[in-house]
């Protein structure tokens, strides 16, 4: 075999680092199947939103265009739309809405966790980290490139989510855009996806095995998402306080709390206590006994009802606040991962 006698003479030296763009092709070769999977998943979500959103948009347009609004025909159209909107398959609590909210963590866990865990599990890091590109530069380029692609794809999908949601915060049926599918909009969708991706990359580096790293990512993400939706989000900006009451489905305001005062001092929070109702409002007919029904009655006895809420006009502010801290978190976790790649003893 002449191959063995082929020259393998050593080359000349050059101390400049290799250009970053080299990693674009390398990353694509290694992760194209994963990226194709992400595109298919997001494409399916977009098509699904489109088919579910078309009837909603049509019903909304028909109801809004109808004149005069008080006519029976118009009321029927409005009713049709409300019914569509309330039985919404894709809303926060509809089965579709819940499924769609898993998309960021699925992308993050299945794209992020294997990036380093597979190298460590199969031993290929011994190949990758001894090439001329250098190991921390390899990790930085690869993680940042994948993050940018995932962010762009999810931001585009976020536009479709927002289009889908439009009629629901319109003038007919009103839900707060700060609550329903808030984590899947233009800024937050990439934000949550990047956070999950970064959690996955770090978990993979720490755990060094693909499947446990994916499980750890799912768990960490679930905790973070739960904390954000349940505790953090309502505190992004100080809520607006005003007297009055908001009925669900009739306002785009996100009501944070309700309470009542009497003579300028705090009386009770939420619904009036039974003792108070029995004392002042026992004569009310049963169909008027909601907090709203009691309000005029209690108002006659000097009680003032208050609400604090986040107005829908804060949508973009909230998007950028949530997207901002998620991006900062993702950057921090990716930096920690790269530091570990740089420092790790093999």
């Amino acid at each position, binding site marked *: *075999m*002449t*191959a*063995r*006698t*082929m*020259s*393998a*003479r*050593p*080359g000349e*030296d*050059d*101390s400049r*680092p*290799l250009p970053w763009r*080299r*990693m674009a*092709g*390398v990353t694509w*070769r*290694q992760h194209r199947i994963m990226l194709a999977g992400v595109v298919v998943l997001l494409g399916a979500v977009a098509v699904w939103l489109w088919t579910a959103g078309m009837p909603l948009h049509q019903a909304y347009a028909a109801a809004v265009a109808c004149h005069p609004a008080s006519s029976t025909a118009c009321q029927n159209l409005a009713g049709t739309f409300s019914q569509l909107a309330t039985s919404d398959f894709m809303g926060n609590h509809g089965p579709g809405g819940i499924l769609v909210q898993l998309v960021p963590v699925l992308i993050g866990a299945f794209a992020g966790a294997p990036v380093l865990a597979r190298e460590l599990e*199969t*031993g*290929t890091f*011994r*190949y*990758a*980290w*001894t*090439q*001329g*590109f*250098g*190991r921390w*530069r*390899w990790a930085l380029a690869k993680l940042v490139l994948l993050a940018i692609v995932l962010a762009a794809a999810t931001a585009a999908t976020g536009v479709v989510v927002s289009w889908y949601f439009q009629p629901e915060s319109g003038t007919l049926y009103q839900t707060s855009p700060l609550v329903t599918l808030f984590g899947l909009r233009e800024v937050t969708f990439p934000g949550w996806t990047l956070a999950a991706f970064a959690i996955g990359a770090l978990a993979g580096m720490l755990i060094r095995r693909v499947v446990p790293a994916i499980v750890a990512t799912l768990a960490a993400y679930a905790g973070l998402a739960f904390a954000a939706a349940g505790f953090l989000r309502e505190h992004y900006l100080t809520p607006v306080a005003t007297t009055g009451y908001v009925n669900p489905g009739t306002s785009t305001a996100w009501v944070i709390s309700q309470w009542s005062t009497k003579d300028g001092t705090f009386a009770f929070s939420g619904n009036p206590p039974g003792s108070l109702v029995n004392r002042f409002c026992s004569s009310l007919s049963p169909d008027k006994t909601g907090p709203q029904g009691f309000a005029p009655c209690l108002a006659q006895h000097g009680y003032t009802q208050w609400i604090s809420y986040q107005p829908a006009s804060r949508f973009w502010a909230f998007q950028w606040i949530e997207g901002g801290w998620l991006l900062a978190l993702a950057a921090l976790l990716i930096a920690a991962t790269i530091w570990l790649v740089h*420092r790790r*003893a*093999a």
Partner: protein
Amino acid sequence: MNIIETTGLGKRYGRAWALRDCTLEIPAGRVTALVGPNGAGKSTLLNLAVGLSMPSAGVVTVLGGRQAGSSAALDGVAFVAQDTPLYKNLTVADMIFLTRGLNRRFDHSYARARLDELGIPVKRRAGKLSGGQQAQLALTLALARRPRLLVLDEPVAMLDPVARHDFMATVQAAAADGVSVLLSSHVLAELERVADYLILLSRGQVRLAGDAGDLLAAHRRASLEELAMAYLRETQPEVTR
């Protein structure tokens, strides 16, 4: 010039030293056999030399004073790890593409010509190649980088005799072209034919290091294997008891 220099080099895992007080000067242009029983610290020393792990003590430089693992060092050092890890789901052509992208130099025509000679189809997935072909692919990728130092960790342990012979012939050809080679094995017979410099490790310490001919003459032994066996018996009676 010394291709590898270590001074007081040590590596500790937890409380156990895998390698300690290792001071070596391996001249350039040699084929160095790193020999010792399993667990002697061979892989530890190689990982330190290619920058995959950081020393717990001392220093290791390659290519005449470059810190192991630095980008200047990585440029001129090619490493084929134990069991020749490759991306099993990528094709041979993909592996060539990757190695080409990740290195300043890559002799594409050399790589293609060698794989042709070896009968390794470029469209096949790396995971579908035989063990010998995978080892040859890893070696070809390493040599196409035109390294000044080629480091091989137990390169032939998993190969059948024919594949071993072919693999070592390739290494020998590279050495003839001026590539310094450092390779480890726990079976010295594999290396006898190609090695002209010997480092004997046992229990994390260097027992013997030097030019193969000088060592044989000094210890009046006929072969490196005989020398190593005698030396290991002396320093480690409990192992060969």
